[in-house]
């Protein structure tokens, strides 16, 4: 309980702002550090438990929720969360082909058309926050937020690869 109180006290002093250099800066008890946001629970709790890490990937602070911060810090954090959690949003699947060791996908994403490849043993996955995620060989994530709302052809492609 004592430790929890101390943690909360520390969080209350935490301030975040986006500075001229384009980076998110965290300040706490006279300490200042350019940080990047890492979501501890990227799918089940995307907006909470945010680890703020410095350039050495050391945790500077853990934000349990935006409501711990003052309004200006909350705004700065919201933008950083959106950047950290960016994934390509699939709106249409136009083609899926299997080749040697890889599966080639052609999709229309909210960000633009994209071709990518997955390993044959990497399958689309359900995520706790809803939807399906596909990971390509380079590590990029493709999120199908509402699979049931895809057009019929896309659903036909997709259902062949989901449970």
């Amino acid at each position, binding site marked *: 309980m004592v430790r929890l109180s101390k943690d909360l006290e520390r969080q209350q002093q935490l301030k975040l702002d986006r500075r001229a*250099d384009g980076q998110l800066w965290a300040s706490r008890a006279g300490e200042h550090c350019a940080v990047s946001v890492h979501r501890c*629970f*990227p799918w*089940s709790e995307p907006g909470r438990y945010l680890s703020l890490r410095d350039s050495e990937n050391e945790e500077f602070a853990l934000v349990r929720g935006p409501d711990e911060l003052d309004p200006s810090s909350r705004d700065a954090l919201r933008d950083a969360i959106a950047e950290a959690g960016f994934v390509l949003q699939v709106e249409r699947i136009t083609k899926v082909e299997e080749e040697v060791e890889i599966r080639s996908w052609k999709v229309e994403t909210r*960000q633009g058309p994209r071709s990518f490849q997955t390993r044959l043993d990497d399958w689309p996955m359900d995520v706790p926050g809803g939807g399906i995620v596909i990971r390509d*060989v*380079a590590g*990029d994530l493709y999120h199908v937020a509402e699979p049931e709302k895809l057009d019929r052809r896309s659903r036909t492609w997709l259902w062949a690869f989901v449970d």
Partner: protein
Amino acid sequence: MSEQNQHTIDRQIIERYTDQPARMPAEVRSAVEDAWGGRAVQLYALSDLDAGMRLTDSWLVLCEDRVGIAKRVGQAWRVDDFERRRLVDTREAPGLSRSTLTLLGPVDEPALLLIRYTHRQQRSVENVRFVLQQELEGRSVPSVDADSQYAASVAAPIREAQALVAANQAAVLIRLMGYLGRYKRQLVAGFVAATLITAVSLVPPFLAGCLIDSVVRPVQDGTLSVERGTYLARLAVGTIALVFLIRQASALVRLRYMSVLGGVGRARPAHRALRTPAAAFARLLLEGENRKSDHAGELGYIPTLGFSGVRDHRCVAVCGDADRTEHGALEPGLGAGLGDGRAGARFLLGDLQARRAHEPVLHTRLAEVVARNRRALGYDPGDTRGEGLQPGGTRDKTPTKSCCRSQTASTPGYTACRWSCRSARNPAGGCPGARPKNQEALQWSA
């Protein structure tokens, strides 16, 4: 394979599988070189996301004394650049599917350049960043063929996924041979037994020849007494019987040791990263959160460092195994069995955060998160230390009390909450195959 052939293959891979250029377009190159007074482009990378997070084609380019980015403006290309000597630091901020590279000037001044890119461009951007970083540290990097570097970087993940077109095909064999390293004794015993089988197989025909030439025929000719012939014949037959026994024994040794290599034995040590096809997604999330590049993922391994839970059959062991990993890495760090359910494994692992020695094994809210994700909570009724937890059914969605709250990293002998594994495989609780020591496990099945 010559470098030229490799470059050709890389370009073909990019053209066939991706929707990005296999090299910097000629009009971009000429625009950049015009802007830089004819200086040649030393290295480049594609920045495929714009500020609005839309896919685009901008080029991060480097020459001997300038860095810039070429952006399409209408039909032309605009080059925003600065002198390399103004660079003070570089900063990379990774995300789930996007990273940002910030090139920083003096403190409190705006960033000199900020580019966003997907993981596909990660390697080529890292090449550029490496050159800049080396320069900042007073070192120089020999010049390379920019087109080859770019093509190799972009094509590498696809090339590596397609093992059949790997540059060094012997590497596959060497890697597979490496797996036999820990079975040296069994391997030697098996090979000796196999050699013995082959060697003694030559003895019966030899003895049969001797028997006919040196015993049967001389006895028929009367040059050898019947008694002597009978003695020699029995000796030969006895030797053949002995050979048969040796062969059978050697076959037993060979089969015992060689046919089951990899299928039996001790748990694999953590420093030998485990191949885990069933947990690919967990690997991905961990890499993302731990700011690791994809190198491990491409090889199909799970990184064990920084991982706060340890996979044990259908459970995530969060105490005993994690401790072992921390103290010397002699035990398995993480490994999904082939029979493990994909659906159950992925997100809990993905949600577990990277942990350093001074941090709690589990996040204080993990119990609720797990419950919310329909993973059952419960405790081992045989263990009095599980009293703090409410038992949960396999579909129990109700958040139950997290014993993690009552324990902190500062608690002496800190151990995370203790939950029994009540999988379908072991409905009575307890983790099948788990070690007998205090084993804290989260239920795995969905």
